[in-house]
């Protein structure tokens, strides 16, 4: 197997694992969202990288060009990015309200406050 030849996959896998790790390991709600963003970004790469042909151009028919990159992954990922942005925005909005309600964005502190029934600021 050609390890170096698959470098885009290595990057993808690295981003995937790193993002997932951040989501799981961090207690800060914002950092979790950042991790989630990295995790999603790896998917963008996973889709787009194979769609590129070396020497290919944008798929607009013009004289002098014979090879085109596959446009479909781009379209898909454009959608996925929009979804990702929406998720991020919603996540942040919820975090803002959590901060207002609990006075903290650290997971352990929030759970602690829920247990003791203590009010936020």
């Amino acid at each position, binding site marked *: 197997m050609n390890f170096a030849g698959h470098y885009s996959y290595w990057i993808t896998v690295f981003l995937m694992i790193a993002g997932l790790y951040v989501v799981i390991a961090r207690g800060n709600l914002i950092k979790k969202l950042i991790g989630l963003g990295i995790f999603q970004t790896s998917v963008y790469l996973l889709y787009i990288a194979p769609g590129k042909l070396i020497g290919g151009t944008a798929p*607009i028919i013009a004289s002098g060009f014979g090879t085109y990159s596959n446009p479909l992954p781009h379209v898909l990922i*454009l959608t996925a990015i*929009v979804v990702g942005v929406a998720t991020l*925005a919603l996540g*942040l*909005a919820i975090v*803002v309200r959590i901060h*207002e309600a609990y006075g903290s964005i650290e997971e352990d502190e929030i759970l602690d406050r829920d247990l003791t029934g203590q009010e936020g600021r």
Partner: protein
Amino acid sequence: MRSDLVLRVIAKLLIPFVLLFALYVQFHGDFGPGGGFQAGVIIAAAMIFYAIVFGLPAARRMVPDRAVEAMVAAGVLIYAGVGVAGLLLGGNYLDYFVLDRVPAHGQERGIFWVEAGVAVTVSGVMLKIFYMFAGRRSDADDA
């Protein structure tokens, strides 16, 4: 910041051109990089620039919250409306071919309106997000 004269003048000068550029990007989307997404974001960027320079209340006077929400909804409705138009003209949902007597023109017509809807919604959403996050802060300050 609000009293910075240079910024205010530059901003007033710049914003029309930003909006114009947005329109260029919007209509160039047919045959080059561009389209509703990008144009919508640029429009929103212009508004956000305005809000940063002149303050949130001023921006809200110009584009009120209600209008922003209406933009979000209207854009989606335009998009869906194109689809329904396809239905009414005898094609499938989102069928652009039937929008004009010449199928190729129908495609262009369809994508034009769809991109317009996208631009409206995207700029609305971007503004809405900005208003929400920025608004919280000033609400908190007022309180």
